[in-house]
């Protein structure tokens, strides 16, 4: 307090007149604040994003392997017409949808328990228990799953101990989703994706459920609804925006990931891996750029659908 008063007394001249200058010109003050971050953000992020879009309209010369800097739709044509490329887009989108549905199914009971049954103390525990794995190193979690899913790893051991070994073999021999081991099959990849994005689904569902007023549930019961009916007709519709909000994360994160499909899973390519490989070893930035426009477009479409379900109100 004394220090503050001293400073007020000492602050005469330049500081005061500078303050008055900005007080009289709020726009100048605003500009002063906003110019550095916006300049940085505009050039580094938005500028790069624009240059990426621009370069997706370039093409690559097949003989010299050099980028031809002339606007053309050739790269997009290549993306849409080559069956292998279309497969990659479909494979990634299918995985994203499957992961989103699975995350919603596992997250809902956890979020529901947190919001409706847990005591305040247990609620804090749950909250931290959901946040901690979310913030644990991404790469370390992926690595952990490689250990768990390996041929002689923990999951195989667990299933064998429980006498479920034959069930695992049957699942792995299923065409398409199976593979030689869990760590090299789409089943394994699916499990890892679901694990990785689960907290991103639990938190918004929990937030939506917390906002359901108890009185509504009591009213529903007073009017003669059975618990199941209340759940279906009152709670579920009100929680749905939360599910939609969570699905934005699970969907978007799956679409863009390139580490998980590389570390765990079957040999089929995913969008992210294609982007990484095309810019790296292949040196084909135009095709990498065109491929990275796909998740942007898919997410934009997804967002417009989800917006109708009120996902943004639940964020």
């Amino acid at each position, binding site marked *: 307090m004394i220090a503050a008063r001293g*400073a007020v007394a000492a602050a005469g001249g330049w500081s005061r007149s500078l303050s008055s200058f900005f007080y009289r010109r709020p726009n100048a003050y605003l500009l002063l604040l906003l110019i550095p971050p916006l300049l940085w953000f505009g050039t580094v992020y938005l500028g790069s994003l624009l240059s990426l879009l621009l370069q997706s309209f370039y093409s690559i010369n097949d003989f010299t392997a050099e980028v031809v800097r002339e606007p053309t739709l050739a790269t997009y044509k290549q993306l849409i017409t080559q069956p292998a490329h279309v497969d990659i887009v479909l494979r990634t989108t299918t995985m994203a949808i499957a992961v989103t549905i699975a995350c919603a199914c596992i997250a809902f009971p956890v979020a529901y328990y947190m919001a409706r049954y847990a005591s305040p103390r247990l609620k804090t525990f749950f909250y931290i228990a959901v946040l901690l794995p979310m913030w644990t190193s991404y790469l370390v979690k992926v690595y952990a799953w490689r250990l768990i899913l390996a041929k002689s790893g923990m999951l195989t051991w667990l299933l064998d101990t429980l006498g479920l070994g034959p069930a695992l073999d049957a699942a792995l021999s299923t065409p398409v989703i199976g593979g030689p081991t869990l760590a090299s099959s789409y089943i394994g990849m699916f499990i890892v994706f679901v694990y990785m994005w689960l907290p991103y689904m639990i938190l918004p569902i929990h937030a939506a459920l917390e906002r359901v007023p108890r009185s509504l549930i009591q009213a529903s019961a007073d009017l003669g609804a059975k618990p199941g009916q209340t759940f279906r007709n009152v709670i579920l519709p009100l929680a749905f925006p939360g599910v939609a909000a969570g699905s934005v994360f699970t969907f978007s994160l799956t679409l863009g990931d390139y580490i998980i499909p590389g570390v765990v899973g079957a040999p089929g390519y995913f969008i992210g891996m294609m982007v990484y490989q095309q810019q790296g070893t292949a040196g084909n930035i135009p095709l990498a750029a065109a491929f990275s426009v796909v998740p942007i477009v898919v997410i934009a479409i997804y967002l417009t659908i989800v917006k109708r379900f009120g996902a943004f109100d639940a964020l």
Partner: protein
Amino acid sequence: MRSSFDRPTILHRVAAAGGLVFMHFPVFIIVLYAFTTEDRTYQFPPPGLTTHWFEVAFARNDVWSALGLSLAVATCATLAALMLGSLAALGLARSRFWGKEAITLALILPIALPGIITGISLLAALKLAKVELGFWTIVLGHATFCLVIVYNNVIARLRRIPRSLSEASMDLGADGLQTLRYVVLPQLASALLAGGMLAFALSFDEIIVTLFTAGHQKTLPIWIYDQLFRPRERPLTNVVAVMVILITMLPIIAAYRLTRSTEERS
């Protein structure tokens, strides 16, 4: 008034507990395997336990230099993000002007779009500008999403500080700079600290953007990533993974406590 609906069924308890176990056991596996005596397969349960791998890790120069690089990058990225993020939040919190909506929307793009988009766009732009990849290009990429984290933390706090405090300060004769220095900034301190710590942890752990912008530099996550495809000395990778967990966890827990305690007070 409690109906039977207010009590969870057994099935419900099992589902909730199962979800939590599913979310936590992989981290225990990492820690467990850091002590295993078996270094060629991922045999479970481990045949024996040893602390040998910690000694090996401490003697390795490549681990130390990767750790040093990661810490340096995270520090630079966090400092840049703190400055730019808080400026953006101060500017956008209470002002109203044309195009503000567009700016707020653009500021969430780096976390709304998949990380790979940030990575490939930066790389495409840097290649176009013929910039050499290295330490500063890693910082550039990290600062971009760290900025958003700091911005979100600071703007959330600014929205909760009552405007009357600043008005009272001005009424009592303080000018704009003094109000900023003695009223606004002290209120922001813990939000800045929390945002900075989250940004630090995020940057320290980042791999998706880093792989694009690192060139030949090896941060600690890139070191682990390389190990995944050259799986020699597997338990060593686990020791490094445990290190990463500890270094990212501590600031995150601190940040969580900081934001919580101030929320409870207000």
